[in-house]
């Protein structure tokens, strides 16, 4: 198990390297320099700036310089927010995004699995059909459609909740968290339903029933864990999807999270910031996927066993 984990950990290195390389060269082949918006700069000042940001060096040298920095988690100064480093911006925005994201993830996991199990246990009933219809809706309606509509209904018309802004209060979190979690709830519900139905058809569930155990025990003790395994492996992609979603959510609800900085940076061509956020989030996703894999293996004795040998 430990050996395997270390191996997997080493396996992350090429992924990270690829992430950094693609991000770096994409940015560098971009037409127009980062100071385009300040066209009127005198040439010597521009040269100064270029020197300060090492833009005058050969590309390969810049690449390795950047790689060296990133290895020690230093993403350099921001091009647009003059007095800020990218690290400071990340430190500013990430806790906000992470709070919303984590809350949404927990909500999605709990609600999604419960709905999925409920649908599976009443397969092909009215409850099942309506739950799955709603789940399909949750998958199909983009969150940038749901968010404004919820704001309109619950904030503007009803006045129950703030329409946006951020002061770390629960009231401010409700709408963003719900909107962000809806697609994940829907997806997890479908996933859980499918896997639960499959598990309930397996031979070992038949054995458990033949033992005369009450159905509730059969489900809790025998079916739940294997039915949730696919959901566990979905948590990696779900995180990635939520991070993407947060970009929109933070914008709609005016939340000063990392997604907001990213879009702002993208619109302003703040190269170091954009690159920093992409690499930071990329690493986060890679590491989370790694952890999810470990949890999955830990929950699955067969994998644990195969690796012991």
């Amino acid at each position: 198990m430990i050996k395997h984990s270390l191996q997997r950990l080493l396996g992350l290195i090429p992924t990270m390297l690829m992430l950094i390389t693609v991000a770096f060269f994409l940015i560098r082949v971009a037409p127009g320099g980062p100071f385009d918006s300040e066209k009127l700069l005198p040439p010597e000042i521009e040269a100064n700036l270029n020197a300060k940001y090492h833009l005058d060096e050969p590309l390969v040298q810049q690449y390795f310089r950047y790689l060296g920095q990133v290895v020690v988690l230093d993403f350099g100064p921001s091009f647009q927010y003059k007095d800020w480093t990218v690290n400071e911006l990340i430190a500013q925005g990430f806790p906000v995004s992470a709070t919303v994201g984590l809350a949404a993830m927990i909500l999605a996991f709990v609600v999604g699995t419960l709905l999925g199990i409920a649908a599976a246990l009443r397969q092909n009933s009215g409850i099942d059909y309506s739950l799955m219809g709603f789940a399909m809706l949750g998958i199909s309606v983009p969150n940038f459609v749901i968010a404004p509509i919820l704001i309109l209904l619950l904030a503007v018309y009803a006045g129950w909740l703030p329409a946006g802004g951020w002061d770390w209060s629960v009231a401010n979190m409700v709408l963003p968290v719900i909107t962000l979690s809806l697609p994940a709830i829907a997806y997890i519900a479908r996933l859980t339903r499918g896997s639960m139905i499959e598990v309930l058809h397996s031979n070992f569930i038949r054995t458990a029933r033949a033992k005369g155990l009450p159905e509730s025990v059969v489900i809790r003790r025998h079916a739940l864990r294997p039915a949730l395994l696919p959901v566990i492996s979905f948590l990696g992609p779900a995180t990635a999807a939520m991070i993407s979603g947060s970009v929109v959510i933070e914008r709609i609800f005016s939340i000063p999270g990392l997604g907001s900085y990213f879009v702002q940076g993208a619109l302003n061509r703040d190269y170091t910031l954009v690159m920093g956020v992409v690499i930071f989030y990329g690493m986060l996703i890679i590491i989370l996927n790694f952890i999810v894999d470990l949890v999955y293996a830990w929950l699955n004795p067969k994998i644990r066993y195969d690796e012991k040998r």
Partner: protein
Amino acid sequence: MTKSADKPVIDPFEAALEVHDIKGRSPWEDAWHRLLKNRAAVYSAFIMAFMLVLVVFGPMLISWESDFTDWDYTSSPPSIESGHWFGTDAVGRDIMVRTLEGGRISLLVGLVATIVSLVIGVSYGATAGYFGGATDRIMMRVVDIIYALPFMFFVILLMVVFGRNILLIFVAIGAVNWLDMARIVRGQTLSLKNTEFIEAARACGVGDWAIIRRHIIPNLLGVVIVYVTLTIPQVILIESFLSFLGLGIQEPMSSWGALVSDGAQDMESAPWTLVVPSIFLTVTLYCFNYIGDGLRDALDPKDRL
């Protein structure tokens, strides 16, 4: 067969043939029948057909131009009298014609980007699966690596880097969305590769590429159809996402995502500017997802019962 009607069947081989005769429908016919039984999918297909006609021909029938600003009716609510059935936006443009024209772009992006991802995914996956061994391992490792990257951010990055033009949107979205397709096609290819008719073709000296083209790809059709149907809504979603952020389609062109974004700005004074394009977008995504689901269930009978 030359079997006479009253001769008892004792030859097991013949009996097997007879069993086969009873359920002699081709797999495609079977799938078609199963699909027709799936009401959600059938309704969705009708709605989508209607939507397509509406989007393609609708703008020609509406007397308003999409960029005509009707200063007598700015932010006017839906009404029959004004002629703006779905209302107008803040500068008096007709929401209906804008939504239908935006739909053209959204659906076009859906189609073209899906084709891009299809071409990349199928050729990549079929190649990896067909050659197997080290080639396969390396190619799939690359897919794994790309899979782990936050691809939405890469699309945004691409848009930032190359500027926002519609061609690039097609390519960028297609280029990051081929991974699923590649994985599935590879899996199918691997399992098809060793079946008898491929062996036979190879024994007859048919070349590798000819086998891929003539045998493997036609057999992949089922899965590919399913995933194309499921990729279209994904792609439409990504495009509208980008447009919503202001990173996609630019004025004067418009797409559903861009319209939703505009509508969200004015939603307090003119909620219909948000609601109308939202409904079109949502209905489209909903229908495509149902059609895709229905096709998958129909073409993959192992999930039955």
